[in-house]
Structure formats: structure tokens, C-alpha cells
């Protein structure tokens, strides 16, 4: 095998053919932990879990990239050895571990999962502390449920809310459970009832059917953001005037849906309102009042819908 690149060398730009990386040079500007696997990287769940568990401990800003292809191992001179490199933001190798050549505090008989987990944690520790202290975490028991959280900033009702979220947290759960905005309701949690309706960039959407991490950079409006001080939005007032609710559970979704729907190009008839509002279910059956409320705001006379 050729000699592996050492500390202080320029990291070559290579294409990383893994699921989470592209060209190495694309990552300039942030510290990179490059893991090179000698054999084909098969992201089975077991390995993913270990990898994400290790990743969980990484400070923000560190990119972990993974390569298993021979051009990468050739460019770094690692041959068929497993290896890990820390590359600083300017593209210089600042730490290296090549199995069989360099030493880690514990060696021998590692499974590939253990190697990956240890190497990432090691590399991250070195990249950030230039010390060895956090390494103990690499040998923690098999992770059961360690999911990477990140700071997700949601702009809700005009305010930026930084939240620490796993990727799998829906916008609905982020609003209710992390931001404390419980006006948005969870009904079916499968996109069928409309109770979770909010606005994203002025359009009505279902907050249960999207992940919060996907909604960064968008303007989110919830029922809490509709009134201006003590002045209700005209749709809110109309729901009161026309008895558009009974138990109230579906109401914030109905109102969020209606406030967006009145800006959509629907016809003027009651049947248009019913069709346009069909994504909002009301178990109490307040539909006649809901149609009347929406029609009153649209300036249409509901035909026999009031009560």
C-alpha cells in the first residue's frame, strides 16, 4: 500500500459516493470528519444507529462524511485499511487514524460498528478539543435510542423560535410540545381531519404531515397569530357570530383553513365552501354555521345555511 497522507497535508478533493456527501471540497469552511471504510459501506440500520449515536455527540458545524470507494482510499493512501481523518476548515489534515498503522487507546477485535463509532467520536474530540477527554463516550453501551437533535429555527407568528429537535419531529409536535403553542390541535395525525391546519407562507397546510426541520426559512402562522391584540380576525368573529363550533376541538383548524381558503379562487356558492373546506372534519356537525361564517366574510349570502 502507498503511504497514507499525514497531518499537515492538503486533503485531496475527491468524490464521496455515499448517501450523505458529495465532493470533499464542498465541505470547505467547516471541520470535516472523513471516515474511510475498506469494504463497501452498507448502511444497515445497525450501523446507522451506531453512527448517529456517535454523531449525536458532535458539536454543531462538524460535517461527518463517509466513503467506501477505492478512489477515496487511493487518494488518501489508505489502501484496504479502515481510516479516519479530521480535515480543518481550510482543507488541511489535522488528525489521522489508519487502522493497523496508527494507535487508538483500545485496539483489536473491533467490529466495524465499533470502529466507526469510535473513530467518529475520537475524530470529533480531537477536532474540537485537541484533547482526548470525551473519548470515553465511544465505549458506551450499545445505543438504544440516541437520535441526533439539531437547532431548528421556526419563524412562527413573526417570531424566530430556536428549538432543539430530532428530524422526525413533525411541525405539529414542534408547535405544541416544543414551542408550547397548543392552539393547533392534533386530531388524526394522518392528514385526514384538518385539526392541525396552519399557514406556511400564507398557504394552508397540515402541520402533522411535514417535519419541522423542513419548514426552516418559512413564515408559519398559527391560530395564536391571527388576532391583532384584542381584535379578532374577521373569520374568528364570524365563527362566533354564526355559531361555527360546538366543542371547539376542530375550530382552530377550521379557522386557519377558512382564512386561507377565502383567498383561493373558489366560486361563490355554499357548495364551493363545502368543497373547499372538505379537509376539515367537525364531529359536532357545526357545518351549517361554518359555511355561514365563511360566506359572511366572503360577502356572500349563505342560502339556508344559518341557524
Amino acid at each position, binding site marked *: 500500500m502507498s503511504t497514507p497522507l499525514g497531518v499537515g497535508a492538503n486533503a485531496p478533493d475527491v468524490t464521496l459516493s455515499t448517501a450523505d456527501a458529495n465532493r470533499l471540497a464542498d465541505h470547505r469552511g467547516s471541520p470535516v470528519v472523513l471516515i474511510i471504510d475498506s469494504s463497501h459501506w452498507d448502511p444497515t440500520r445497525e450501523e446507522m444507529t451506531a453512527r448517529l449515536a456517535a454523531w449525536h455527540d458532535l458539536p454543531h458545524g462538524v460535517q461527518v462524511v463517509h466513503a467506501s470507494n477505492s478512489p477515496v482510499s487511493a487518494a488518501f493512501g489508505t489502501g484496504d485499511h479502515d481510516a479516519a481523518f479530521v480535515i480543518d476548515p481550510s482543507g488541511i489534515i489535522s488528525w489521522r487514524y489508519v487502522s493497523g498503522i496508527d494507535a487508538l487507546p483500545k485496539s483489536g477485535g473491533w467490529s466495524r460498528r465499533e470502529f466507526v463509532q469510535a473513530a467518529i467520536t475520537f475524530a470529533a474530540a480531537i477536532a474540537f478539543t485537541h484533547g482526548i477527554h470525551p473519548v470515553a463516550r465511544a465505549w458506551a453501551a450499545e445505543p438504544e435510542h440516541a437520535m441526533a437533535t439539531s437547532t431548528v429555527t421556526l419563524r412562527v407568528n413573526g417570531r424566530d423560535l430556536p428549538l432543539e429537535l430530532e428530524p422526525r419531529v413533525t411541525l405539529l409536535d414542534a408547535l405544541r410540545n416544543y414551542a408550547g403553542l397548543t392552539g393547533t390541535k392534533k386530531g388524526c395525525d394522518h392528514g385526514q381531519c384538518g385539526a392541525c391546519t396552519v399557514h406556511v407562507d400564507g398557504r394552508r397546510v397540515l402541520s402533522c404531515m411535514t417535519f419541522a426541520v*423542513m419548514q426552516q426559512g418559512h413564515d408559519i402562522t398559527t391560530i395564536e397569530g391571527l388576532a391583532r391584540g384584542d381584535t379578532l380576525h374577521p373569520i374568528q368573529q364570524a365563527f362566533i357570530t354564526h355559531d361555527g363550533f360546538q366543542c371547539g376541538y376542530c375550530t382552530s383548524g377550521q379557522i386557519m383553513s377558512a382564512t386561507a381558503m377565502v383567498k383561493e379562487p373558489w366560486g361563490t356558492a355554499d357548495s364551493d365552501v363545502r368543497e373547499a373546506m372538505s379537509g376539515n372534519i367537525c364531529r359536532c356537525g357545526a357545518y351549517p354555521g361554518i359555511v355561514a361564517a365563511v360566506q359572511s366574510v366572503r360577502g356572500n349570502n349563505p342560502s339556508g345555511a344559518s341557524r
Partner: protein
Amino acid sequence: MIDFDYRRATSLDDAIRSAGASSKFIAGGTTLVDLMKLDVERPAHLVDINALGEDSNLASVTELPGGGLRLGALARMSDVAWDPRVRDGYPVVSESLLLAASGQVRNMATIAGNIMQRTRCWYFRDTAMPCNKREPGSGCSALAGLNRIHAVLGTSDKCIATHPSDLAVALVALDANVIARSSAGERTVPIRDFHVLPEQHPEREHALRPGELITAIDLPPLSFAKRSLYLKVRDRASFAFALASAAVAVDLQGGVIRAARVALGGVGTKPWRSTEAERALVGRKANAATFRAAADAALAGAKPRKDNAFKVRLATRTLERALTQVTS
């Protein structure tokens, strides 16, 4: 829901490079998030492609140089449905979209995601039940189970699940093309070949290769598509999947049908183009007898089961009514 790794793709090439066998692209999320909550979909990586629409035509409707329209993969159902060029030139497309889902879902769900929807078969969605589509070789619970909503056309002894998309039924009637991109380049797949019959492998649903990404759906120029419509019959008046539906376009001259396009939804394991019905229409006078013969031809190969025999009659009448309306 299982843990997954999330990445926001910054470009088309980045998205394609980020994709792999264990990853899924996510845009609207209305199918994928739903199925991930049910544990039916378990991707290790999610590649968010929404940002790709910001500096490209991927989220818009554009005119094709030789006529026709290009529907960007990331265009939302509602945007395409309300687009005046779609409404005027291809009413069947606009109607198929507006008769699908709800206002909220249409604001989220994309055109490409729509044709990639998974079946609404209740056994597919229930991980406690055997399903050959979800778990190859485990068996089909619908064959002897409750199969009222299931298919009568294109079925196999492994799967009788319907394809749920309304849009895809309109697209197959129009001979639309799916444009797909991968690291190997761009290719065009006729929509008729895009969805595949279940046969012995119901887990295979479409012609996309792992990591391949739909970038657009092209509607070819078709002058008589102006005379087209989508008729949908379902268990409730709105926000329900089709029990039977018909997409029809007719070139009518002096009361005689010169050309016709017919496709059926809610009854097939894939969006069901019926050339049999088209042959029964072309050259004939547009009248009830012609429509009846065409509808009978469309359903001639139907294989009803215990609970879905009504669909044969329902689809026949749906098609007859659609043809009556489109020619009147």
C-alpha cells in the same frame, strides 16, 4: 417512527448524489410522513428536495417549445390545478387534481409525489397484516379479506391493490411523459410504462431506478384535450379516494368521434388506459349505444372479487356518463 438522517439538497446534482438504496426523497411529505408514522416506510435517510424549486422551473408550469406543458416535479397540486393554461388546454388534469385530496393536502403534495403515491389498500397500511407489496412473499390479505375498495383490472394472485392517484389516470389518457434524472443522465419514461402491473412482484410499482429523481411531467400537445374531463365516484362527496373514475378526451366532429382517449381510476392496479374503449369509440357516432359499447369493452377483462363486483357496473356507468358529458 424510526430514526433517520435528514439532509436538505442544495441542487439537483446534490440531491441525486445524496440518494441511495436506503434513502427517500421528500417534498410534500403527505404520503411519506403518513407511511413513516405507520412504520410502512422506514427510510434511513431523507433527502429534502424542496429547495430545488427556488432557482429553477422544477416547481412551476412552463410551456414546451413544440407545444404542450411541462409540469415541474415540485409544482404543488393546487398550483397546477388552478393554472389557466392547464385549465384551458387540459381540463382533465385540472379536474383530476381538484377532485383529489383536500385544499391543505393539495397545497403540500407535489406532481411527482402524486404519481409516486402508495396504494390505500388497508392491508398494505397495517403492518400487523400480511402484504406482498409491503413484505414480499408474506401473502395477500385482500384476496380472501375485505376487498371492497380493491382492483378488478390488472390484478394478480399476489396483489389486487388499486393505484390511488387521480392525476395519473388523466396523465395516462394524455400520453404524458415522465422526465427522470440520475447520475447516468436524464431519460424520458412514457407514463403508460411508468407504473407496472403487480404480477408476481407487487413490491415493484414503477420504472424508477434507486436514486432516480423525477424532474418533470410533460403534457404533449393534444388539440382535443380541450374537450376532456375527469369524473370521479367515491363514498363521500369530497376528500375520498375513487371507487371508480374516468378520464376522457374526445375529438368530436359533426357528431362523429374522430379520436378518443379513455382511462379509468379506482379499478386498476395501475392507472388504467383503455385502448379497447378507444377503439370502440373511434369512427362512431357519439350516442348512448356507442358509449355503452365502449364502457363494456373497457371492463371486459374485469376480475371481480367477493366485495368489489359492484365496481364493474359502477366503472361502466362512470365511463358512460363521462363520455356523455364530454360530448354534450
